[in-house]
Structure formats: C-alpha cells, structure tokens
C-alpha cells in the first residue's frame, strides 16, 4: 500500500532527524565545554549537520553518527582554514576547534556527554529567561533560528540576533558548562525544567513543527531525569508531558479541535500514559512535592477516564487548590475556576473567574480566560454574554482548528 510506505518514509526521516540532532547536540556540547564558545562550535558543525539532515533520510543512519558528523565537519574545517588564511580572531577560534576535533575520536568514551551541562549554561540565571528554551533548542537540538522564531512568535531576525547575543554572553561573561553544585541544584534545575516545559508548550498546539518540538522536549527531560533520578520535579515534568502527548491523536478529529472532555479515550496512546503513571509514581516516592508533579497528577486524574468513564473533578479541584498556592499564574487560576464550575456549578466558576479578573488587566487578551468564561456563561444560561465571550476568545486565538471549534461552540448557544 502506498500510504503505508509513505508512513514508513516519514518515520525513517523522523528517526534520522532525531539521531542527527542528538549526535549534533553531543558534539556541540563537547566542543563548547572546552572553549565556552557555543557559536564557534555550532559554526564548525553546522554544515555537517545540515548535510546529515538531507543525506541520512536517503542513505540511512550511519553506524557511527558522531563519527560521520565529525569527519564531514573536519573536511569543511580544512576547506575553511584554507580559504581563511588571514589571521583573525575567528580563525584562531575555529583553528582551536579543529584541533580539538582532530583529537576527538568519535564514539570514543573521550567524547563525554556534556549536553546536560550545555543545557544548564543555556538556562543560566544570567541569561534572559525568555531565551532559555530557544537557546536549548538551537544549541542542543540544532533547530534553526527561523523555526524557533516561529514557535515563539518572534521575527526570525530578532530571534537570531537575541540568540547570537546570548551565546556571546555565555562566552564573554564566563558562564561555565558544568553541572551545578548540590546546594544550587534545585534552583538551577528548575530553570532547565521550565525551559524544557516552555519548548514543549510551544510544540503543543502548533500542528506544523509542533509534534517534533514536543517529542524533543520529552527526550530532553528524560535526559535530565536519568541524570538526576532523585529529582521528583524532573520526573513530574516528564509525566506531565507524556500525559499531554498521549492525547495528541485525540486532540484533532478531521482537522477539528476536540476538547479534552469530548476526546475519544480509545485514541489516547496507552503506552505513554503508562510511562507517565510510572514516572509520577516514582516521583511521589521521593517525598518532595512541586508544581510539575501536581500538574501531572491532574492529568493523571483526566487519564483515569479511560478506565472509569468519568472525570473526578473534586480530586482535580483539590490539586488546583494546592497548585494555586504555589504558582501565581493566570493559566492555573483559570483552570481552577473551570474545576470549581464542574464541582460546585457554573455560577461558582464564574464567581472565581470574576475574582481573578479583578485587578488583572492582562486577562483582557488571554484567550483561555475568555473561552472558559464563555463556556461557564453558556452553561449558566446567560446566552448573550456567552456569545460575546466566545467572540473575544475567537478573536484572540491563532490556531485555526481551535478557532473553528470555538465558532461552532458559539453557534450552539441560542443567543442570536
């Protein structure tokens, strides 16, 4: 069947891309751990990496992917050095990298895995927090600035410029590629986990490059969780993302957005749910509670619907009550109001939303607030107000699938 072959082709292309990114990240991290110069390491490997992304899906993944990348990079390096005979700083830097690359034998234990250290450098508190996730995506995974820019809704030129500046800061300010000490670990780990979650969140809704970003975020988090098996929050985040990813096939039906409560639980990927549950269980045994574990627990309650056929909203509300004391975020507050609406009735949910809206002007352009408000108003029978709120939500949404869902939902309320 041609359809099936096509699927296989997509799969092998995706596998080649994943292996290329992982090998690339390993080499960038290895080189920059020695020079602190992430940009130069990327320069040295960029052409080889680009070649891998085009060649590997055709030829198959080489037996030693890092060896392949290094060999191609060295050849490019020699070309470059020949072209660039003038003795400027950049040349020296690249020359130094060429030297390190000449010494490094691929797949040799000497190429130690420094990717975690690189992630900690990218999510360093001395770097603008908004750049943590973009930097990790570029340096550890090799995403280009244009892809990252579109995921973060910034112009490619702006994103490229910010990334260049951040890499210059890593080098000039002397941010080391090393794992943090035990006493600073919790705080620094939190920065890395938040960056990973930001990358995942960017991959959540966008149907284009979304799935890839989400998969890579999950992979990065499992790298962190493997290295810090005592970090309950790393396990919690992993569980949270796996629960979300498990539902990806059910989130769209024929291109139309399907809200969680209406999803066909049979379309959820049970192997991911089981992995998520296992991670969450392990996290729970470590005895330190945190926001990611609670968010994962909420998703776990939703996931239980596939066995019980119902959603235990009282349990969800309890988790949101705890979460709201830990995280001052409009996302949490709005979701908590929705849970209140489910447990105590729509008028109580609306009262909770009113309370959030008081003194918080930023909600005026926050789509989930208006979508939640519209839903609760519609259930409360306040049709005209519901229609207005749906209009606000529709106007604020950029995902076309979600927009058409909201539009359909609006016409279901008998208001006009």
């Amino acid at each position, binding site marked *: 069947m041609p359809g099936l072959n096509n699927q296989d082709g997509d799969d092998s292309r995706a596998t080649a891309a994943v292996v290329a990114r992982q090998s690339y990240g390993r080499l960038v991290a290895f080189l920059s751990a020695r020079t602190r110069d992430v940009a130069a390491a990327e320069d040295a490997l960029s052409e080889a990496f680009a070649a891998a992304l085009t060649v590997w899906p055709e030829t198959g993944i080489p037996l030693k992917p890092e060896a392949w990348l290094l060999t191609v990079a060295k050849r490019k390096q020699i070309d470059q050095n020949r072209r660039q005979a003038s003795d400027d700083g950049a040349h020296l830097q690249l020359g130094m990298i060429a030297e390190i690359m000449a010494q490094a034998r691929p797949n040799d234990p000497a190429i130690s895995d420094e990717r975690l250290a690189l992630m900690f450098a990218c999510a*360093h508190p*001395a770097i603008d927090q908004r750049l943590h996730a973009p930097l990790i995506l570029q340096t550890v995974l090799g995403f280009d600035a244009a892809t990252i820019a579109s995921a973060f809704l910034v112009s490619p030129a702006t994103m490229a410029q910010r990334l260049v500046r951040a890499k210059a800061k890593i080098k*000039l*300010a*002397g*941010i*080391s590629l*090393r794992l943090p000490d035990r006493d*600073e670990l919790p705080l620094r780990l939190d920065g890395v986990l938040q960056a990973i979650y930001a990358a995942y969140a960017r991959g959540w809704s966008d149907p284009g490059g979304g799935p890839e970003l989400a998969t890579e975020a999950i992979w990065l988090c499992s790298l962190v969780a493997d290295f810090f098996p005592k970090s309950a929050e790393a396990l919690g985040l992993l569980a949270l993302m796996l629960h979300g990813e498990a539902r990806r096939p059910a989130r769209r039906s024929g291109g139309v957005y399907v809200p969680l409560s209406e999803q066909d639980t049979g379309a959820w990927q049970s192997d991911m749910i089981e992995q998520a549950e296992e991670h969450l269980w392990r996290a729970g045994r470590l005895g330190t509670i945190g926001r990611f574990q609670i968010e994962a627990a909420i998703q776990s309650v939703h996931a239980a619907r596939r066995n019980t056929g119902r959603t235990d909203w009282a349990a969800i509300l309890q988790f949101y009550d705890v979460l709201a004391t830990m995280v001052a975020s409009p996302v949490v507050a709005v979701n908590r109001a929705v849970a209140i609406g489910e447990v105590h009735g729509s008028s109580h949910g609306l009262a909770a939303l009113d309370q959030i809206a008081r003194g918080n002007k930023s909600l005026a352009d926050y789509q989930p607030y208006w979508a939640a408000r519209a839903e609760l108003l519609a259930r409360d029978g306040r049709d005209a107000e519901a229609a207005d709120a749906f209009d606000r939500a529709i106007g604020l949404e950029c995902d076309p699938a979600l927009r058409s869902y909201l539009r359909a939902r609006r016409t279901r309320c008998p208001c006009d």
Partner: protein
Amino acid sequence: MQYLLMIYGNEADSKTASKEDNERMYAAYGAYTQAMKAAGVMVGADRLQPSATASTVRVRKDKTEVLDGPYAETKEQLAGYYLVEVPDLDAALVWAARCPGAQHGTIEVRPVWSM
C-alpha cells in the same frame, strides 16, 4: 577570569545611618574582605567618596568639558568595587551575593576584557 563587582547603593540612606549601623557595616565589609583575601580571589578593592564629589570629563572638538557630578543621576550610586580573579561567572556571582552591599543595594558583575 577577572570580574569587577561594582557596589551600587543609595547614598541618602547611608547618610542617615546610625553610628551602630555604620559600625556593623564596617565590620561586615572587614570580614568580607578578609574572606576574599583568604580565598585568594581578591585582586583589588576600594571604597569611593560620595557621587557629589564626582566630576565628569569629555573632549569634544578639541575642547575639554568638565562637569560637576556623576556620569548619570541614578537612584543608586556607585559606592565601591572589588576586582576578583575566579574560574567562572558562577563563582563571581557567589562572591557578589556575599557582599554586604548586596543586602541593601545592588552589585553589578562585569567580566574584565582581557587583552
């Protein structure tokens, strides 16, 4: 690497500080400087006279202009500095956090441009 830790604080506050407060501050800075020397990271350090004593100079079209006052009027003023030699930014940030001035004011940490 060398880093300059620049201590910014509100001069108005320190003018109104009590004698006890001042003594506590001197003691804290004494201990901090001692600890830095013992760790072998201190390259140099100085306290500066208040910003009212500052003059700014610039040469424009071969003409030297001298102005009374600091470069920029800010809420917090540069009060002193430590120059440290440490392996990386994290180490410099740890020393900055230990500075008594960080309790009330702000420490700016800048890598030195090595030639």
